[in-house]
């Protein structure tokens, strides 16, 4: 080893140590945020905040299944009590009237600041007469009759008005006192964690606690009768993280093992196999370290992607070992390889890097990380192969001569009749299939990127439907510098929404001001209450025609007097009531920015019809709240994904263009460039056509997979495009071996339970195989010609 070689090895070892240190300290995340924009618009920011930290992200939905309704309700009660005791949850609700008594008491004792109907007019003699008359009429209905005992203290029916406001949104069905699914087979519970939804570690702890708590309340001997199923964003994040970690570890291990076995079979040399894995190891470490340094957080999906790099980076060492056969001694053979083959490998590496570099420009961290990971990983693997491997290869190490295998493969390829016609036919068929399916080719929903399996998503949707939280698709968002300002704005927006509800355009809406009116509104309501003497006089007048004995309304007079002197309500007063949960879910606070959310509900029976958002926007404009925006969450997230998909396509096209430019620059012949690229493009077309035929919609991960096919395949095509210098059988053997390694790596990925990894594997494994076959067929044509 000369001085330069020693330096290369020393630098390599230092790099390995440093990269390992970075990788061990890196922070790993596994939520959907990898696919959320790094520089969002205000509306997207709202969406991102909601998904990451918002109250919705903290919900864990639970379903207890099995057993009969009564036993299940008993288990659910004990389970919920256990969860409440743990203190890890802001709220645990299962439909039990745990806080109902407290809620009623709170609403009743503060009815004169909470009721919408309170204004000065309501306490004039005429206003009182009208309100009391309406209450009496209400008492004649089955539901109203429940309020008869309150008549002497609440003759104007404020409690009724408050409850009507809060109950306009239907809740879940009940059975045996517990929330139940519509089919009656599941008991439901909703727990709101203290920890934010993106704090995956805390979510995992809370989920484990829930499972332990459930196990502990199961009646003895009925262990298998009932089961708990959990769902929600935190559950998904935890599950996805563990799936991805498992997949990354297990698939890496499996593909490494398979590749080792393959190489052992071919090389018949343990040291060669061991050394051959060095570029792979270096590449994987370099990739994760680069992402950790460049982005701060490594997304789980990037880690999963790491597996795929094994398949590609092992290629470099395969070329090195298989092709370096000429010359005496390791040093000479290495030198010969460098001269004869390295330029082609280098061009292949550069081509791959060009393909991935465009991803770095992506506005989505997930894509940018994939780009950074691939570039640094491939670069490291190639550099180690070029500068370190030749230095550490034992002088007498020679792997088995695989030229005969290559020669045989070459004959097989050569025996294919009319290869060019075959390729042309395949292109025509693929293009025709793609053209026929062009409408349904791409999946256009953000959820397509979700690391959550479809079955889990369906279960979640079913639970949300049962809980009555499924149909919130549209929101009005109002912003402001403090809580009071957003509550006031929410009240003004609410006034214009009331008109929409009145006219039947809107079913109902929820507002934080329903739970806690702004201080200004509370003050105004309080100021409209008359003093006791005035009230008594007016009552006497008001009750004359109603048959009400005004002397018996003393509790009412006392309550109004108390409310006049009472304190205004603040957030703290809501504590301990279920109103706190409702309120917290509708108020977002980050830094100096406050936002109030007003979820909109469609008119019953018309849930599937989209709301007329244009009309709502006009109504909001008339409310004079300039910070109010109508947000269609589904539309917003689909727009986000559409933008994402468009960007990925643009970047992929950019990557392809960069590859073309690079090849033109190096090969300096349009014919040569075409010869290199055509097999790759055809491989991609065939894979896409196969997906279309199988009815599978393509996602961004499929697109990335196609980019990978081009990146990996370019090596094959470049080697085949080289003039035949007598080493062709050796080259074919090296390429075949490299290809099998790649197909193993990606093929395993295709069996992953993580949808995005599966998509990647399903695309690249067949794509890489086809790229090799097509490249061989295209070159075979040339030999014949």
């Amino acid at each position: 080893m000369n001085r330069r070689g020693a330096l290369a090895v020393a630098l390599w070892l230092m790099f390995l140590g440093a990269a390992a240190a970075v990788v061990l300290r890196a922070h790993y995340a596994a939520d959907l945020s990898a696919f959320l924009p790094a520089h969002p618009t205000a509306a997207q920011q709202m969406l991102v905040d909601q998904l990451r930290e918002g109250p919705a992200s903290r919900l864990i939905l639970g379903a207890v299944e099995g057993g009969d309704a009564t036993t299940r309700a008993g288990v659910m009660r004990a389970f919920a009590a256990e969860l409440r005791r743990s203190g890890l949850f802001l709220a645990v609700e299962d439909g039990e009237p745990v806080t109902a008594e407290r809620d009623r008491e709170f609403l009743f004792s503060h009815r004169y600041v909470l009721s919408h109907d309170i204004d000065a007019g309501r306490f004039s003699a005429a206003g009182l007469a009208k309100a009391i008359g309406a209450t009496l009429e209400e008492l004649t209905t089955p539901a109203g009759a429940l309020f008869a005992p309150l008549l002497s203290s609440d003759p104007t029916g404020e409690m009724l008005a408050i409850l009507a406001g809060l109950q306009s949104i239907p809740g879940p069905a009940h059975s045996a006192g517990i929330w139940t699914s519509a089919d009656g087979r599941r008991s439901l519970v909703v727990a709101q964690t203290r920890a934010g939804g993106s704090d995956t570690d805390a979510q995992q702890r809370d989920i484990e606690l829930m499972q332990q708590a459930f196990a502990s309340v199961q009646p003895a001997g009925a262990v298998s009768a009932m089961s708990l199923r959990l769902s929600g964003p935190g559950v998904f994040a935890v599950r996805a993280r563990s799936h991805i970690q498992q997949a990354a570890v297990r698939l890496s291990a499996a593909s490494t093992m398979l590749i080792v076995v393959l190489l052992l079979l071919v090389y018949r040399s343990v040291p060669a196999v061991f050394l051959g894995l060095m570029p792979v190891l270096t590449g994987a470490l370099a990739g994760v370290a680069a992402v950790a340094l460049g982005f701060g957080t490594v997304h789980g999906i990037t880690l999963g992607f790491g597996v795929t790099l094994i398949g590609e980076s092992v290629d470099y060492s395969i070329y090195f070992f298989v092709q370096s056969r000429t010359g005496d001694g390791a040093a000479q053979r290495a030198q010969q390889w460098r001269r004869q083959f390295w330029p082609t490998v280098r061009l292949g590496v550069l081509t791959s890097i060009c393909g991935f570099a465009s991803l770095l420009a992506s506005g989505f961290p997930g894509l940018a990380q994939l780009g950074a990971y691939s570039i640094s990983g491939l670069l490291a693997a190639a550099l180690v192969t070029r500068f370190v491997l030749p230095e550490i290869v034992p002088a007498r190490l020679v792997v088995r001569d695989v030229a005969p295998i290559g020669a045989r493969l070459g004959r097989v390829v050569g025996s294919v009749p009319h290869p060019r016609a075959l390729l042309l036919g395949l292109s025509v068929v693929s293009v025709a299939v793609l053209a026929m399916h062009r409408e349904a080719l791409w999946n256009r929903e953000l959820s397509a990127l979700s690391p959550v399996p479809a079955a889990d998503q369906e279960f979640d949707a079913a639970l949300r439907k049962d809980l009555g939280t499924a149909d919130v698709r549209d929101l009005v968002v109002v912003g402001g510098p403090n809580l009071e300002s957003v509550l006031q704005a929410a009240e003004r927006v609410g006034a214009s929404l009331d008109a929409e509800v009145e006219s039947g355009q809107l079913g109902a809406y929820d507002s934080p001001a329903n739970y806690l009116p702004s201080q200004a509104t509370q003050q105004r309501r309080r100021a409209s209450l008359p003093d006791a003497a005035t009230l008594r006089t007016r009552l006497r007048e008001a009750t004359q025609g109603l048959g009400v004995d005004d002397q018996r309304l003393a509790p009412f007079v006392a309550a109004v007097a108390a409310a006049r002197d009472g304190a205004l309500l603040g957030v703290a007063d809501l504590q301990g009531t279920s109103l706190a949960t409702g309120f917290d879910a509708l108020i977002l606070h980050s830094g100096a920015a406050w936002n109030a959310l007003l979820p909109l509900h469609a008119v019953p029976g018309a849930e599937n019809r989209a709301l007329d958002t244009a009309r709502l926007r006009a109504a909001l404009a008339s409310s004079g709240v300039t910070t109010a925006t109508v947000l269609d969450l589904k539309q917003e997230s689909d727009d986000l994904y559409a933008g994402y998909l468009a960007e990925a396509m643009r970047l992929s096209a950019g990557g392809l263009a960069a590859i073309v430019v690079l090849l033109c620059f190096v090969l300096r012949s349009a014919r040569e460039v075409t010869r290199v690229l055509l097999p790759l493009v055809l491989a991609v077309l065939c894979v896409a056509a196969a997906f279309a035929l199988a009815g599978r919609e393509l996602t961004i991960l499929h697109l990335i997979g196609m980019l990978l096919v081009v990146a990996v395949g370019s090596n094959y095509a470049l080697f085949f495009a080289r003039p035949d210098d007598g080493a062709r059988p050796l080259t074919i053997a090296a390429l075949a071996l490299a290809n099998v390694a790649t197909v193993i790596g990606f093929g395993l990925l295709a069996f992953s339970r993580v949808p995005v990894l599966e998509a990647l594997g399903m695309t690249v494994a067949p794509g890489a195989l086809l790229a090799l076959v097509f490249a061989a067929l295209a070159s075979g044509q040339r030999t014949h010609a």
Partner: protein
Amino acid sequence: MRASRRRLVLFAFALCAARAQADDSGLAQVLQGFARRTHAHSNYVEQQFLQVLRRPLESRGELRYDAPDRLEKQTLEPRAETLTAAGNVLTLQRGSHRHVLDLADYPQIAPLILGIRATLAGDRATLDRLFQVDFAGSLAHWTLELVPRDPATLHSVARIRIEGSGDDLSRVEIGQTNGDRSLMTLRPAPTP
């Protein structure tokens, strides 16, 4: 003095025993009649006598029963609202608004619904489980007095008094613990 009091007590005992006798056969007869009937439909007028009011509140509507456990009270005037109790599920429907509630969450109305429903179903076991049952009269004109056994219920509903002849209800009176009461007068709805 002492002797006369003792006589009075004895007399009262005798009376009770006699009533208990009549109770069993009469009540059983009435309930059997109801048990045979799977459908009932009446028009009602309801008067609510509230402490705060100088005159009763009046409303009218229809009461329907379908065996085994569906009871519907449809108020028509002055304000339309329908209350349906099927099993333990209460449904309130007013216009397009619908609320589904659990009967168990409403102890103020649960005994009323359960009592009337068990009577219409001829379900003696449920009546005995929930109420202290007192029967008087004959099949032609009987009175059933139900006093809730559950002390929590007694906070709101003191007693339910059902009158009828044969397998028709004619009056349902509910006495609230606070002194309010309501009286429902029923007439079989004309069969269409």
